């Protein structure tokens, strides 16, 4: 495969390899096959202590999917010459789908590598890794869904394994409780989501995103109420997946109680998955509603949710004592930032692509820095040191490199200049301002200033405070966890010079949706 290939490009140059059209969903297929392979291995050789085998297979699978995705992204699959649709248009592969698949697969790879240490001595490794792969598969499917039917089905496909994964520590009450809450709110939200879809079907008579948009082209006069309720309920379903107010209630508990690698996975990849469908559905199907009469101003609804989410997440995070729960709330706050990508859209606005692209770039960087932060927590849980800020005091004396990585994550999450997180937040706020939503940017800037307070508490605990004698338990170096944390930190730092490329890709992908 030395030649650069363009999948199904209409005007392929003679030297380029042209792959059949169906190969565009190769990343999805790889993830599915990996999950099924894990189940098969477990069925054929049951009872073997296969933690290492399973981790290896899963890591290989997600890295293979990542490689193919990045290759497609570079080669222009679904971008040059328009998006590729499959299965009677129910599936679409374009720049945005590939961009987000890259996020999911890289987060999954990090989490798998970290889980190898975390799961040492646990039973049911096969279930863990297969569920993880299936959840990733569900997210990848969400990214390529082009019909409300596939959106709903793949959203469930991502949720179901997540419920089980949150409750993976079956004998830990925190894990079980968080799993229950996650599941119950999830079930309720998916019922709301399904009802919203049914109402949209009621007014348009179709589920394909492009057909729904066509159904709205003539306006909503006569049934604005039904359409509006449907649209807002669909927004609610996405708010659940992205942990946005008022569907966020499961998040602090689920992230706190779940095994830390799963918290990392859910708060980074799952959130991004919620955003990719929300971006696609709203930008493809519901744009005509913004200037219809009577108007269904869902962008304003997202603006309200974004403001409330930013404020609530950051304020609640500022007063936490438990580091993991603090990160959980901060993750809610970041959902608020990414919501700006929807809130700042306007009918026919020239900045729509920039705004959404900036939100996508933020989610990419967030994927690395937030996963890294939670994996650091996983490391601390692995050592059994404790959970509060005081327990973290002086950890840098025992684990300087991991603590340095954590400092990078914290400052980057806070959006301090010189780390990737600053650029992405800056691009986001700047594009919101140019789209005329300066007040969203202002709320974002003020809440991220507040966030610096609680993020720097972690750095202070790690680097400045003295150990209080509970660090003797640290007697081992979990290689996989270390590798994952350091890799995430390197990626966060490398996204500093690499940010222009990421932003450019994201904006191109987002602009294609509005073309």
């Amino acid at each position, binding site marked *: 495969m030395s030649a650069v290939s363009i999948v199904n490009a209409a005007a392929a140059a003679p030297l380029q390899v042209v792959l059949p059209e169906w190969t565009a969903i190769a990343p999805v297929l790889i993830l599915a096959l990996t999950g099924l392979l894990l189940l098969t291995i477990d069925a054929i050789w049951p009872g073997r202590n296969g933690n290492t085998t399973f981790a290896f297979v899963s890591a290989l699978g997600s890295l293979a999917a990542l490689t193919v995705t990045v290759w497609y992204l570079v080669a222009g699959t679904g971008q040059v010459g328009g998006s590729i649709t499959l299965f009677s248009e129910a599936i679409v592969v374009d720049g945005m789908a590939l961009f987000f698949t890259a996020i999911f697969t890289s987060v999954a790879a990090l989490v798998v590598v970290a889980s190898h240490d975390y799961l040492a001595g646990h039973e049911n490794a096969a279930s863990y890794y297969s569920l993880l792969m299936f959840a990733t598969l569900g997210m990848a499917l969400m990214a390529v869904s082009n019909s409300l*039917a596939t959106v*709903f*089905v793949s959203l*469930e496909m991502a949720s*179901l394994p997540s*419920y*089980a994964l949150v*409750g993976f520590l*079956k*004998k830990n*009450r*925190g894990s*079980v*409780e*968080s*799993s*229950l*809450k996650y*599941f*119950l709110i999830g*079930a*309720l939200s*998916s*019922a*709301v989501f*399904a*009802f919203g*879809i*049914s*109402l949209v*079907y*009621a007014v348009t*008579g*179709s*589920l394909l995103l492009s057909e729904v948009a066509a159904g709205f082209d003539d306006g909503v006069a006569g049934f604005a109420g*039904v359409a509006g309720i449907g649209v807002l309920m669909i927004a609610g379903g996405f708010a659940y997946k992205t942990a946005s107010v008022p569907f966020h209630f499961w998040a*602090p*508990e689920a992230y*706190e*109680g779940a095994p830390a690698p799963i918290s990392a996975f859910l708060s980074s990849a799952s959130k991004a998955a919620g955003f990719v469908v929300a971006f696609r559905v709203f930008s493809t199907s519901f744009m005509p509603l913004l200037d219809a009469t009577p108007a269904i101003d869902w962008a304003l609804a997202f603006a309200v949710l974004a403001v409330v989410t930013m404020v609530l997440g950051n304020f609640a995070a500022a007063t936490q004592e438990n580091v993991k729960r603090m990160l959980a709330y901060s993750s809610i706050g970041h959902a608020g930032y990414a919501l700006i990508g929807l809130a700042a859209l306007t009918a026919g606005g020239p900045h729509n692509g920039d705004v959404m692209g900036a939100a996508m770039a933020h989610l990419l960087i967030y994927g690395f820095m937030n996963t890294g932060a939670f994996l650091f927590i996983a490391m601390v849980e692995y050592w059994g040191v404790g959970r509060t800020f005081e327990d973290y005091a002086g950890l840098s004396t025992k684990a300087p490199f991991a603590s340095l990585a954590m400092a990078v994550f914290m400052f980057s999450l806070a959006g301090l200049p010189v780390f990737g997180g600053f650029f992405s937040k800056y691009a986001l706020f700047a594009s919101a301002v140019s789209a005329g939503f300066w007040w969203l940017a202002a709320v974002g800037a003020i809440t991220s200033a507040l966030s610096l307070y609680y993020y720097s508490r972690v750095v202070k605990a790690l680097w400045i405070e003295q150990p209080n004698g509970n660090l003797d338990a640290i007697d081992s170096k979990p290689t996989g966890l270390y590798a994952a944390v350091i890799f995430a930190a390197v990626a966060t730092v490398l996204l500093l010079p690499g940010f222009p490329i990421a932003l450019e890709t994201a904006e191109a992908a987002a602009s294609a949706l509005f073309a």
Partner: protein
Amino acid sequence: MVPAQYYLLLSAAVFCIGLFGVLTRDNALYFLMSVELMLNAANINFVAFSLFWGNLTGQTFALFVIALAAAEVAIGIGIILVLYRNFGSVSVTDAATMRW
């Protein structure tokens, strides 16, 4: 033919009855059943408007919703089972140790 609004009213009523159950019952199994009711409210719309629009999209999708509801129950029962082993009850209010 029955006006379309009647179907919508019926489904809204079923949806809110399900929601009422969710909000007022502590037993996790009741919670699950109520959610099923809400999903079926969506199915009423799908089937009714399938006829209204003269296409089969809604009816077919209703089957998928039913299948997903089954999958959700499977996972849900599993979680409730584990909940019972840990907390000695299936009440959703007992598992309330993490908060704030």
